[in-house]
């Protein structure tokens, strides 16, 4: 079976906006979501910069039991999923009766685990921890919460693949629908944003210390970058078979054409050209389109010298020098487990509104980024097909190609 797979809903809970409209405005304006976080300074972070979102108040929407098992990843994902469901014209009544799956990207619950252990140390008795913590502590917290809230009856798995988690979640959902095993899948990525989440990562010295100007600190592809900035929130995409979308009268936001993936099988943290190249190449081969067809590349580029350079080389080798490229991480920071999903959503917003969001803070190219067309400013452009890259620790790579829907 080889069915067409379309996207019918997106939802965003992001440091550059809560909801699609706010995010679209930020993408157009090149608005940064990076702030200086005093709490990081107090606990001993080297870099105190982060993208920031507030913890949402879910009491108006969910029962006590539904909320008890949720910490940040699940809370953020509920917000983005609520928005995506509304756009896709889906509700609990429909979902309960029509098999729908969920494959959500998430790769940590550090804040929740530390809260639990703090309680245990204080109370000295596991039976005084409470009933919700176990569901907050598990990596599948988003899946457990959303599948029970929305009464989902299909595939139900969490995808943990470091900073490519969100992208792979869409890719795996796409494959299941394409093969006829699912009609629709809730995909996405969530990233906790508390001080515990990124402490050990900060200790590697890979984060920017551009404290004087937080909005200027994330500088993917720029020669003067000094590291990435962590961020978080959640993004949800509802993907489904074309038949299902048309039958339901759902809006069709784009069609997923190709999913490429690879593993470097190399260093645990250092990126590698070969793995990225193979992921990009596979997505094009699978989509069965020529490289020239790609109108825009949403780069993974996180603002680290080695990672950005490898990606610039891979893009140049496969797609050449002309295709417009930007890294929305210049505005959002690195949304990690969420990034692969949110960046497809950001790119969809650009495709729907005929523009390329700027790679802000790109002022001076380096040896590799000068070979590709990094777009530093808002640029009007009709996008029919885009490619979104996501790469993660452990050498996991994912590339997705999405096309404007044509019947």
């Amino acid at each position: 079976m080889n069915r067409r797979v379309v996207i019918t809903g997106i939802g965003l809970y992001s440091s550059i906006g809560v909801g699609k409209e706010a995010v679209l405005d930020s993408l157009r304006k090149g608005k940064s979501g990076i702030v200086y976080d005093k709490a990081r300074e107090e606990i001993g972070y080297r870099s105190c910069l982060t993208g920031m979102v507030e913890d949402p108040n879910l009491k108006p929407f969910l029962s006590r039991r539904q909320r008890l098992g949720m910490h940040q990843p699940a809370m953020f994902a509920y917000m983005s999923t609520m928005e995506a469901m509304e756009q896709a014209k889906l509700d609990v009544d429909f979902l309960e009766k029509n098999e729908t799956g969920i494959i959500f990207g998430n790769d940590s619950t550090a804040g929740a685990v530390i809260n639990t252990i703090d309680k245990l140390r204080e109370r000295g008795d596991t039976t005084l921890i409470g009933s919700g913590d176990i569901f907050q502590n598990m990596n599948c917290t988003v899946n457990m919460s959303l599948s029970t809230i929305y009464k989902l009856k299909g595939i139900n798995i969490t995808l943990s693949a470091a900073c490519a988690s969100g992208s792979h979640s869409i890719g795996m959902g796409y494959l299941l629908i394409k093969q006829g095993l699912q009609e629709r899948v809730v995909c996405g990525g969530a990233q906790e944003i508390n001080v515990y989440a990124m402490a050990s990562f900060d200790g590697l010295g890979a984060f920017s210390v551009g404290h004087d100007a937080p909005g200027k600190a994330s500088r993917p592809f720029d020669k003067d970058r000094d590291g990435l900035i962590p961020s978080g929130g959640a993004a949800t995409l509802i993907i489904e078979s074309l038949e299902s979308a048309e039958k339901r009268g759902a809006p069709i936001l784009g069609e997923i054409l190709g999913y490429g993936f690879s593993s470097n099988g190399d260093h645990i943290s250092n990126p590698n050209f070969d793995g990225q190249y193979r992921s990009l190449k596979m997505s094009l081969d699978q989509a069965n389109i020529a490289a020239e067809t790609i109108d825009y590349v949403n780069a993974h580029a996180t603002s680290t010298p080695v990672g950005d350079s490898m990606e610039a080389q891979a893009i140049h080798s496969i797609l050449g020098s002309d295709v417009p490229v930007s890294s929305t991480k210049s505005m959002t920071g690195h949304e990690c487990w969420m990034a692969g999903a949110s960046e497809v959503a950001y790119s969809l917003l650009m495709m729907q509104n005929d523009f390329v969001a700027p790679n802000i803070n790109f002022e001076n190219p380096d040896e590799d980024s000068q070979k590709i067309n990094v777009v530093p400013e808002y640029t009007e452009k009709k996008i029919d097909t885009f490619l979104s890259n996501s790469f993660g620790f452990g050498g996991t790579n994912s590339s997705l190609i999405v096309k404007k829907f044509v019947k």
Partner: protein
Amino acid sequence: MTREEIITTTKRFLSEEFEVNSEKITANNNLQKTLDLDSLDYVDLVVVIEENLNFKPTSDDFKKIDTFNDFYDLVERKLA
């Protein structure tokens, strides 16, 4: 703690924890149904009792509780 103090105190923390209107917590109402407790909620009931009254009820204690009156009796016995 007097019986009245027990009623006032427990009504406050039970309605807060289980998000139930405190007016529904009356002596002859069924505790499990009023608070809408499932097996997981009994874990949280133990936690809030320990936090507010400094004792930990056992599962055998809960087996003997039907109404809030039974619950107040248990608290009285434990605090005596």
